[in-house]
């Protein structure tokens, strides 16, 4: 937790965070108990400030709201307290199955163990990416630029030269062709492009990448299609190119 991120608790409690930063900060909150506690206190404070400008609404509003209530379905509670459920009595048949099930479970849990190790790594990567994202978005010199291609691909670039960070967000990015991947590059007038990393769109066509290894004299960001695994220098088709904001 850097001081810079922590400073956003106030802005967050006041709803004074732009949408794009809100999501990143909320991911950070999930991991930072001290921040979450402070946010709760500051939200309670803000609520008091809000209460101070209380004003009785026109009386007809009450009738309208009460009438609507009769037509609105209520959401069920979230089920995180659902523990003490009554156990169903087990039949003899179910008992016989238990032994087989236990053996099967052993097999499953061994392979699951492997999976879990991998997803913990993925989680760590995601976590460090979202920390970098929050740092970048809250940098004093953060600059944004957005654009779209004729094919409907949208890109947003956020850059902080002081922090040496760049983030690329893409939307409407179709899945890469089989055996290929998208790769993002920082490009400059003199010298060869430097890889920022691979971009993998999710099933809604969105992809994002953050890089913290410096901007140097780069003045453009580009995305090309490369062989799966990526390349050292861009060979394939360039699908997007954007000038870095100054």
């Amino acid at each position, binding site marked *: 937790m850097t001081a*810079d991120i*922590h*400073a*956003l*608790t*106030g*802005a967050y*409690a*006041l*709803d*004074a*965070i*732009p949408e794009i930063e809100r999501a990143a900060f909320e991911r950070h909150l999930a991991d930072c108990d001290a921040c979450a506690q402070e946010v*709760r*206190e*500051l*939200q*309670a*404070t*803000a*609520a*008091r*400030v*809000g*209460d*101070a*400008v*209380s*004003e*009785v*609404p*026109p009386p007809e*509003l*009450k009738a*309208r*709201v*009460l009438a*609507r*209530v*009769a037509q*609105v*379905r*209520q*959401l*069920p*509670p*979230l089920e995180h307290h659902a523990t003490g459920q009554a156990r169903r009595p087990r039949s003899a048949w179910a008992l016989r199955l238990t032994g087989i099930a236990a053996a099967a479970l052993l097999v499953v849990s061994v392979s699951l163990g492997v999976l879990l190790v991998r997803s913990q790594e993925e989680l760590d990567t995601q976590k460090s990416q979202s920390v970098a994202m929050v740092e970048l978005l*809250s940098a*004093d010199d953060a600059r944004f630029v957005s654009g779209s291609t004729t094919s409907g691909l949208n890109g947003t670039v956020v850059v902080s030269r002081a922090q040496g960070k760049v983030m690329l967000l893409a939307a409407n990015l179709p899945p890469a062709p089989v055996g290929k991947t998208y790769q993002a590059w920082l490009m400059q007038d003199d010298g060869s492009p430097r890889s920022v990393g691979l971009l993998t769109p999710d099933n809604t066509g969105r992809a994002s990448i953050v890089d913290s290894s410096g901007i140097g004299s780069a003045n453009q960001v580009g995305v090309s299609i490369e062989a799966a695994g990526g390349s050292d220098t861009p060979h394939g088709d360039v699908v997007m190119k954007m000038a870095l904001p100054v």
Partner: protein
Amino acid sequence: MAERVRRIAGGGASGEARPPEAETLLQQVARGDEGAFEQLYDQVSAPVFGLVRRIVRDPAQSEEVTQEVLLELWRTAARFSPERGSAMTWVMTLAHRRAVDRVRSSQSATDREDRAYRRETSRPFDEVAEQVSTRLEHEQVRRCLSSLTDLQRESVELAYYRGLTYREVAELLDTPLGTIKTRLRDGLIRLRDCLGVAR
């Protein structure tokens, strides 16, 4: 004082004395109790409408947003979790969010023309102070607000009562982003301590 104590201790006591706490009402509302919802309406509609109106300003739109907020309370009452804060905080956080959503979505179109105008009218404190009710509670908020530095107070009020983002506040006050972020946080912390908000 005795009444206050009773109010804190008593949840759902019927008959004389005070109406049930918002927390208790929300629980009943979650079970579909329309009578409890009516009581909840009586407790929260003025704070909600006042805050929404402060941000949205247009009376008809403010009523719409207030209605949305109240229906949202009805819809999601079962999702309220007291461990994360009081019912009133939950209600006001939701109200603020909805009001801000409303102004930000209708804002982008008129942004540019707006900027010059906002520069001239960047002192909401006087209007706020004027309208703050004389009730003790409200007095205390005002007293606490006025104990902030000018920059803290202006930043908090522009963000909270006008629904601006911290980036817009920085722009409006011609102050670096980092400074505004810090002022919003330390301003709120000072308010928290002044108002005695439970830690």
